[in-house]
């Protein structure tokens, strides 16, 4: 299992695209930093210090939620792209034949793939998350609460998508799997937006659609929970009063986290069961 995980890890490092992604990620962070910088200079020009502090913390929290929203999106995209073919790609190319015919159980193969990619994605996601928070704090001095719990939630998102992609990868072709997982992710995203709007205009039907979609794909719910924890702590009471589609005014309950963990475990088990029986 460790052998497979190590190889999966090394495979990513051997790809050019990995380095391209790193460069682009840095570019994203730079753009965000510049945006923050100009916001800060703009706001500090105001004469009224109380007003500028108030507006400042609203603006910064909005910008931060925007950055986190797109960071989540980037991480999700990366996870799906890197994991959809992890098993099916090997089946399609035939490289798997000289691997699982060796003294290795099929579940070891799947968990090795999972462990390798999970480690890689977690490191990447954690770095991105800390960079976004760090840049915000350095440039604006804005300090969100619950940074560590937020990071754990932030990491659950790629893990969930990884498990789902891997499961699909042991069942479908790379292409079909990629489309399926990505569509599911979009459903979760749209559902989350719809729910926020529903809460904003007090429409029960919209809220229910959101809840339903978050059961199908909990990524957005986890994201909402994360931003709520970060931006709506005791230090930032203002944010509850403003509407922001990238943020959250009523977070999902802790039950949602438990549901998501069960979801992930179930998906991984399904991947193992499916892969155990399939012909290659």
């Amino acid at each position, binding site marked *: 299992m460790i052998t497979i995980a190590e190889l999966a890890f090394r495979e990513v490092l051997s790809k050019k695209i990995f380095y391209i992604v790193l460069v682009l990620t840095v570019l994203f962070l730079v753009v965000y930093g510049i945006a923050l910088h100009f916001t800060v200079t703009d706001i500090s020009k105001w004469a009224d210090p109380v007003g500028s502090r108030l507006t400042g913390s609203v603006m910064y929290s909005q910008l931060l939620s925007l950055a986190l929203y797109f960071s989540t999106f980037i991480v999700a995209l990366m996870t799906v792209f890197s994991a959809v073919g992890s098993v099916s790609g090997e089946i399609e190319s*035939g*490289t798997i*034949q*000289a691997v699982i015919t060796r*003294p*290795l159980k099929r579940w070891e193969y799947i968990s090795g793939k999972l462990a390798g990619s999970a480690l890689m994605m977690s490191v990447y996601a954690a770095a991105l998350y800390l960079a976004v928070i760090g840049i915000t704090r350095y440039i604006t001095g804005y300090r969100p609460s619950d940074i560590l719990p937020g990071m754990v939630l932030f990491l659950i998102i790629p893990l969930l998508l990884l498990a789902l992609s891997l499961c699909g990868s042991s069942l479908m072709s790379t292409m079909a799997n990629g489309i399926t997982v990505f569509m599911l992710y979009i459903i979760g995203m749209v559902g989350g937006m719809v729910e926020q709007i529903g809460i904003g205009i007090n429409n029960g039907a919209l809220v229910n659609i959101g809840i339903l979609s978050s059961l199908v794909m909990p990524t957005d719910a986890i994201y909402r929970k994360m931003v709520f924890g970060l931006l709506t702590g005791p230090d930032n009471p203002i944010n509850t009063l403003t509407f922001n589609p990238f943020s959250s005014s009523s977070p999902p309950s802790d039950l949602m986290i438990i549901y998501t963990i069960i979801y992930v475990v179930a998906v991984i088990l399904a991947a193992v069961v499916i892969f155990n029986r399939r*012909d290659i």
Partner: protein
Amino acid sequence: MVIKIDRLTKWYGNKLGCQDICLSVLPGEVFGFLGHNGAGKSTLVKMLVGLIFPTSGQAEILGRPLGDTEVKKRVGFLPETFRFQDWLTGYQLLNFQASLYKMPGSTRRNRIEEVLKLVRLSGHEHYKIRTYSKGMQQRLGLAAALLPDPDLLILDEPTSAMDPLGRKEVRDIILKLKDDGKTIFLNSHLLSEVEVVCDHVALIKRGRIIASGSINELKEGNIEVEMKIGNFNKVVQQALKDTGIPVWWEKDRVLATVGDREQIPFLAETVIRNGGSLYQLNTLDNSLENLFLSLMQEGGEQN
């Protein structure tokens, strides 16, 4: 018994892979499994190594049922589609394979060098597999299969990408392993390849075994008759088929495998009585090639 196969059957949906295969392979034997494209050779081998699951039937490898992980340590397998993680170097791949085989680090290095030398890839091991030619990749696959010094080596068309010299080298490797008492299961559609190395062969056609035995058994008692027939029309062809003697033809050249000398005049009579002009009839040296061809053409229909 190294391999014991009992009525192994594989259906891909409603498409037959192979049906009711019964075989046994003894220790130290080189077993040839022969058949045309799509006959079901790879299907059988894939079941043996656990890539696909049988629809019905059982098999044992080295005394254990299929899928036993411990046994896999003693089995080397070269897949028909020899594709590897081509971003690794040859050496890295073998090192990875060695850890899959759970080989201890101390013996690894030497063993890797040994197999590299055996398949004549020494000197190329630090290049990326991406830069290897097809034949070199197949050699590397063979090296990987040989890595754990397996008691049973399963090779699916091991020389499909190799040049004539490579084929001979593989043949020599097989013979050397046989001398060391290893058992080899060889899939091939090349009779010439099988004939020189195998003790036993089985012929498979459309998923079923149509003949099996030692090379000598198969040759024995069979006389190859070659005829040149003028006016070789449908009537003559049908009459020849109706005799029940395996026949095979190419234009006016007809080959028949008779089990008994007395059938030779009978063959001639059949040709002449049905209007064929028999220009030439000679018995050939018993070549497995012709037996193979005639069995392949006729054997399937009889089943």
